[in-house]
């Protein structure tokens, strides 16, 4: 029983173990934060990568796409390993929105089938509710939602409806960051009032012939009505991707089926009555695997179908079949490497924590040598003294790691707010400056009053009055404008962007802590503390009690 009493007393009364607990706390917090953020980053990346491209994709090796994709899609679709397929045509192009022209990746999709494979529907930002909130329209009062207000419905067909039909232009869904007027507020949210929905924008693409040369007519363009905005969470995508209907983009790129007069390849003369058909082309077919099949099984099945397709059509260079992991391998592996490296570095730091605990405990044992002798004299056994110090290490570990867990949770959960605060000059503002100034003044008054009552001398009060006058003068000299100016300058000087979304693909820092990660790290920290306390505890237990009692 004395062990528990002493451990509790030592924990509260000794500075050394507090430092040890602090070291354990900081190490625990650091490891949890790093594992959470890096792990969260990796998870996010993998999820996003998978959701952006489906399980398996069949990609053309050239920007000109591949023909007879309908047959291939049908063949792939018939595979038992496959649950859905959807053709996608994609190209680089330009979007001119309200005079702002930027380069984007334009994807032509069939929204219905595309949405079954790639996350599309739940990335859409705006709905009729946002419209009604904005324009004071209550959908429950009206008999039916006016079609042009059904932003989600329109995005799911990519077909303008209602009064938007009047534009006589195809529909389009743009990445939320493509819109130059869109920005995030302090909480990182986008506002509907800045959305580009219902606006028109010009799309320009460069059609290529089958052989890859620019087509005769040069660039082609179309106006399109923006029906909705999407946010995938991947900054690159949100900044540079728009969706239009498959057939719209196909036609714009000249990749649609073309019929024309046939010419004799030898004479170059038109063959009367004969027709030449140029088959429609696509860039890619995205595939979703069926339930119960592993990714590799789906991949090899699709590969088989593509090989058979190439064989039947005598295509020498068939489209390439890749899983989402292969497609994003470089990217994902880079992050995996980074996570591994950082984890390794933090294992080293944890070893440092063990050594710190060992050092602290060694000092404690030295300091407590005589007490150990006393305990032995009063009847404590060697095992008792050993377990006293091991228990002490355990207590330091438990306290330190739980505090570390709390700190880590607090930091990870608020990482985005912390980042915002740092990026905006450590939150310096005139308001805070005035709060600090006011606090200082109140502190001075309280301190002076306490000082006066403790010393009971008038000179203290007089000097306090002089001090307050000085503070008042300085306060009067620094007008509000100057404080604001100072705050602005400070802001500018010390702003620190920890997480730049343009570098880090995701717009938010991952802020989830996995239960088992945290549990594992906390237990690891506790074990480390006990290990750190082990050698000092053994030394303490082996002390000769008579020597210990003589120790000065």
């Amino acid at each position: 029983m004395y062990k528990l009493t002493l451990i509790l007393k030592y924990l509260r009364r000794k500075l050394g173990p507090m430092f040890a607990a602090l070291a354990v706390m900081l190490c625990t917090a650091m490891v949890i934060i790093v594992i959470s953020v890096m792990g969260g980053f990796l998870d996010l990346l993998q999820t996003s990568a998978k959701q952006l491209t489906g399980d398996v994709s069949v990609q053309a090796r050239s920007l000109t796409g591949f023909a007879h994709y309908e047959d291939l899609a049908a063949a792939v679709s018939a595979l038992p390993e496959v649950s859905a397929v959807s053709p996608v045509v994609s190209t680089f192009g330009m979007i001119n929105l309200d005079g702002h022209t930027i380069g984007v990746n334009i994807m032509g999709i069939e929204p219905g089938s595309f949405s079954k494979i790639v996350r599309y529907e739940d990335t859409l930002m705006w709905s009729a509710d946002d419209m009604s909130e904005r324009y004071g329209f209550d959908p429950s009062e009206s008999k039916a939602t006016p079609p042009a207000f059904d932003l989600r419905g329109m995005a799911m067909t990519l077909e303008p409806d209602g009064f938007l039909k009047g534009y006589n232009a195809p529909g389009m869904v743009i990445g939320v960051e493509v819109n130059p007027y869109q920005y995030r507020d302090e909480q990182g949210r986008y506002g509907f009032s800045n959305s580009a929905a219902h606006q028109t924008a010009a799309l320009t693409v460069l059609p290529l012939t089958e052989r890859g040369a620019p087509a005769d007519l040069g660039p082609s363009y179309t106006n399109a009505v923006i029906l909705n905005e999407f946010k995938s969470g991947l900054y690159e995508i949100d900044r540079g991707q728009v969706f239009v209907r498959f057939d719209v983009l196909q036609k714009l790129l000249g990749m649609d089926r073309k019929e024309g007069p046939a010419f004799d390849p030898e004479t170059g003369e038109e063959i009367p009555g004969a027709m030449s058909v140029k088959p429609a082309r696509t860039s890619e077919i995205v595939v979703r695997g069926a339930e119960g099949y592993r990714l590799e099984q789906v991949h090899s099945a699709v590969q088989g179908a593509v090989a058979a397709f190439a064989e039947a059509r005598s295509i020498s260079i068939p489209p390439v079949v890749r899983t989402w992991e292969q497609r994003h391998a470089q990217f994902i592996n880079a992050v995996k490497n980074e996570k591994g490296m950082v984890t390794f570095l933090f294992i080293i730091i944890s070893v440092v924590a063990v050594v710190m605990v060992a050092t602290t405990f060694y000092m404690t044992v030295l300091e407590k040598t005589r007490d150990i002798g006393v305990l032995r004299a009063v009847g404590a056994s060697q095992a008792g003294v050993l377990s006293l110090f091991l228990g002490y290490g355990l207590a330091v570990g438990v306290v330190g790691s739980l505090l570390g867990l709390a700190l880590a949770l607090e930091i990870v959960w608020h990482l985005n707010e912390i980042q915002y605060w740092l990026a905006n000059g450590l939150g310096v503002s005139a308001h805070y400056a005035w709060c600090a100034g006011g606090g200082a003044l109140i502190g001075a008054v309280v301190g002076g009053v306490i000082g006066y009552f403790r010393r009971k001398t008038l000179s203290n009060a007089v000097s306090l009055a002089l001090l307050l006058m000085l503070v008042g003068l300085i306060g009067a000299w620094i007008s509000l404008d100057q404080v604001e100016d100072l705050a602005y300058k400070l802001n500018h000087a010390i702003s620190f962007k920890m997480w730049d979304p343009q570098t880090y693909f995701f717009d938010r820092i991952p802020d989830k802590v996995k239960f088992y990660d945290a549990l594992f790290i906390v237990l690891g920290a506790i074990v480390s503390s006990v290990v750190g306390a082990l050698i000092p505890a053994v030394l303490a237990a082996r002390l000769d009690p008579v020597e210990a009692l003589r120790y000065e």
Partner: protein
Amino acid sequence: MDTQTTTSNHQPPTTNHSPPLLTVTDLHKHYRIGGQDLCVLEGVDMDVRPGEWVAVLGASGSGKSTLLHLIGGLDRPDKGAVTFDGRDIFKLRGGALDRYRNRHVGFVFQSYHLLPELTALENVLTGAMIRSSILGWPARRGEARRRAVALLGRVGLGERMKHRPSKLSGGERQRVAIARALVNEPDVLLADEPTGNLDTETGKQIMELITELHQQGQTIVMVTHDQDIAATADRRLWLREGALEEA
């Protein structure tokens, strides 16, 4: 040995004809200091009978404290035996020697040796806590506490139980140490120069307390270099050149 109860407390003083409670036989102890052998005890023999107060006198460095440590099972001799209740304590196994120190002897040191983090009451309770496991403590706690409070009252510190040693005077600290030594009702109180660090007046008060304990039947072995203090004891022994002789 564990079944031995501490009935000696209420026996009348000086029962010299009863069988010895503690027998020291041919005790040898040497230290090696700086490459030289220093023989401190060279065949010490003594008996301590229940209720007896034995004072061991000797010059400083004569080995008085070593003898006391050996009797208390805190140190091991080169040769010889300390027999308590018919058994050589140095042949005890499996924590029995720790239990001997905990239950059958109580140490009082010259420089008190209280644990600075604990209050006076907690210091007194240390012996009782060591005796009890965490699970056993709740059941024993009330009784142990009552006894510790009573002991502190008896040594005149009833009002200062919550004070830590740093807030107590030397005499008060020694009283706490005496209370701590008595908390498990030991058969023998081992006092090592209990007044050595105190001024004459305070030392006298401590001696009065020890005398009172003795009158209530407490067996005491006290080592001192001060003949005046030793004069209160039933029996005085001199430790000279490693052996004991009656004064």
